[in-house]
């Protein structure tokens, strides 16, 4: 039977009479846990931001028609030469159109799939921007603006104007900010575009697009899918790309493989396209945990030290306690409780300080051209970090307290009493 009242009251008295050392040991834990919380909130915030930078605007599966040489050359279909060895030199791809055949039925088919959140058609083409005497080469992509906002956060990258304006205005264009700067254009101005096949089409500028990647912003513009089809002189079933967003990114690879087989199209999943991003995330997590664990180990040594010292100083008290009927286990619990109290107080303080620091960092301005939506440092505060941090504190103090308290348990009162 353990009498916690008396054990805790002795532990408390010991700690209070050594308040300075206790405070220093607790501050060690506070420092470790505080740093862990701050670091992990900041690092995961950064991870999420960087991942979102890519993931938000990148389709989980991108389907298009690759221009590549046919694997089967006509000669192999000719029965008379079946048994012979045919060599064809200088194979060139057939000048096939980029169009996805049956694009609209494929989209309908994909949207029926339970794993798919949405499949959006696009028409990509190369054009020239013309204003006065300037001509710039660039890309124009025809989209459904409202759906793109919903699924691929296009809205985050519109710095002036809006997706609604693009949707609602005939013959309108969302111009890349780099093009606008080069050509000194404002929202409301007109820009003329010319497809490669020829012809000139005036489009009204309803907004500017800024992805944060300067090279892209200097060429890329968006328009309604119908407008682009009209510019190209194509029918309204002309689609060059399909972008698919899934509910769960893990399904991307298997579904992409299925699409490639079923429709004889190129389907690239996001993980294959952005493999390097996971590596970055992993390394940042590794740094966070390595630093935090190091700090906690240092804090643990602090606790180990103070308990050892305390036990050395309290040798006589331990002998008396044992002589008047406290068992070795009681004595061990007294010193274990001291370690745990230090860990608890230090840990809770650390959580508070970590929370405070994270909240503070979250208000510090952080503006960058690359990510127009971010105004302050990204911080990701999650309850699970606090649970992990607290468990960390308790675990490290438990380990630090265990050895010294074990020693106290084993102290032979007779030896101590004889020694005086």
């Amino acid at each position, binding site marked *: 039977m353990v009498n916690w009242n008396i054990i805790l009251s002795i532990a408390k008295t010991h700690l209070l009479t050594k308040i300075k050392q206790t405070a220093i040991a607790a501050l060690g834990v506070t420092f470790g846990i505080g740093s862990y919380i701050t670091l992990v909130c900041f690092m995961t915030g950064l991870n999420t931001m960087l991942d979102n930078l890519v993931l938000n605007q990148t389709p989980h599966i991108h389907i298009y028609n690759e221009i590549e040489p046919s694997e089967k050359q006509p000669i192999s279909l000719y029965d008379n030469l079946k048994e012979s060895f045919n060599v064809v030199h200088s194979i060139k791809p057939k000048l096939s159109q980029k169009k996805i055949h049956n694009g609209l039925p494929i989209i309908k088919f994909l949207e029926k799939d339970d794993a798919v959140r949405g499949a959006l058609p696009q028409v990509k083409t190369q054009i020239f921007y013309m204003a006065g005497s300037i001509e710039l080469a660039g890309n124009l992509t025809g989209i459904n603006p409202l759906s793109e906002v919903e699924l691929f956060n296009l809205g985050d990258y519109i710095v002036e104007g809006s997706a609604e304006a693009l949707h609602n205005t005939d013959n309108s264009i969302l111009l890349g900010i780099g093009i606008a700067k080069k050509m000194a254009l404002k929202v409301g101005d007109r820009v003329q575009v010319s497809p490669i096949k020829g012809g000139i089409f005036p489009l009204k500028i309803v907004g500017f697009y800024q992805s944060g990647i300067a090279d892209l912003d200097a060429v890329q513009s968006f328009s309604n899918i119908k407008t682009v089809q009209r510019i190209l002189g194509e029918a309204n079933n002309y689609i060059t790309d399909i972008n698919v967003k899934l509910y769960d990114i893990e399904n991307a690879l298997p579904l992409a493989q299925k699409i490639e087989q079923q429709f004889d199209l190129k389907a690239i999943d996001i993980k294959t396209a952005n493999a390097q991003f996971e590596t970055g995330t992993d390394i940042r997590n590794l740094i966070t945990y390595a630093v935090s664990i190091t700090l906690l180990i240092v804090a643990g040594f602090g606790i180990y030290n103070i308990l050892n010292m305390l036990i050395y100083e309290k040798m006589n008290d331990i002998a008396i306690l044992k002589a*008047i009927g406290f068992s070795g286990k009681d004595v061990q619990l007294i010193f274990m409780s001291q370690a745990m109290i230090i860990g608890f107080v230090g840990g809770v303080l650390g959580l508070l300080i970590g929370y405070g620091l994270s909240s503070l960092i979250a208000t510090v301005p952080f503006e960058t051209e690359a990510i127009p939506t971010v105004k302050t440092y990204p911080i990701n505060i999650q309850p699970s970090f606090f649970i992990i941090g607290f468990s960390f504190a308790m675990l490290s103090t438990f380990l630090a307290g265990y050895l010294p308290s074990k020693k106290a348990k084993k102290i032979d009162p007779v030896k101590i009493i004889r020694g005086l």
Partner: protein
Amino acid sequence: MTTVLEAKHINKYFKKPVMFHVLKDINFQVKKGEFASIMGKSGCGKSTLLYILSTMDTDYEGELYLDNKLISGSDSEHLSYMRNKHIGFVFQFHYLLSEFTILENVMLPAKKLGEKSYQEIEHDAMDKLKMLNIEHLAKKQASRVSGGEKQRVAIARALINNPSIIMGDEPTGNLDSHNAENVFNIFKRLSEEEDLSLLIVTHDEDFANKTDRIIQMEDGKILL
């Protein structure tokens, strides 16, 4: 008359630094209400014997009975309990927990035993302090009282759980004659009025002569 403490064929060896037979076939009893003293030259094994009798030292041969129950070979948890409930120990040096008050020191063994409420324990502790004429010290820090007072506090602490026997290892060895007299009178009264058994190691001839029985020791043996 009932027997409170009985030692049968107790032998003890110290193996280090050299093999040394320190207690040789110790046999004796302490009856209820008996005030016995142990005398003998320094180094003859009195303290060693007392540590065995008080259950703190378990490294010995032979049998030890407390209230006619064999306690040799019990596990340490049980021995702690027996020590807590049935044995009061008074040292030569006044071992108190210096960071606690006098009252807290006296209450400690009862709190550990946990048989009574805090109020009852506090009341009992005040009673013991009154009996020893030191109730005015109750709220003082243990490190702030004199040697004679500390020894009386230690006796109060030994009494708090109403033990079967009080053991003392030269409890007056460190006190002046006035305080030593005082402590003796307390022991005497406890044995006469409360029917408590006492087993006290002493060097003081006068002290021993006033007890009910003197157990003489020499070279680890009891002389009859």
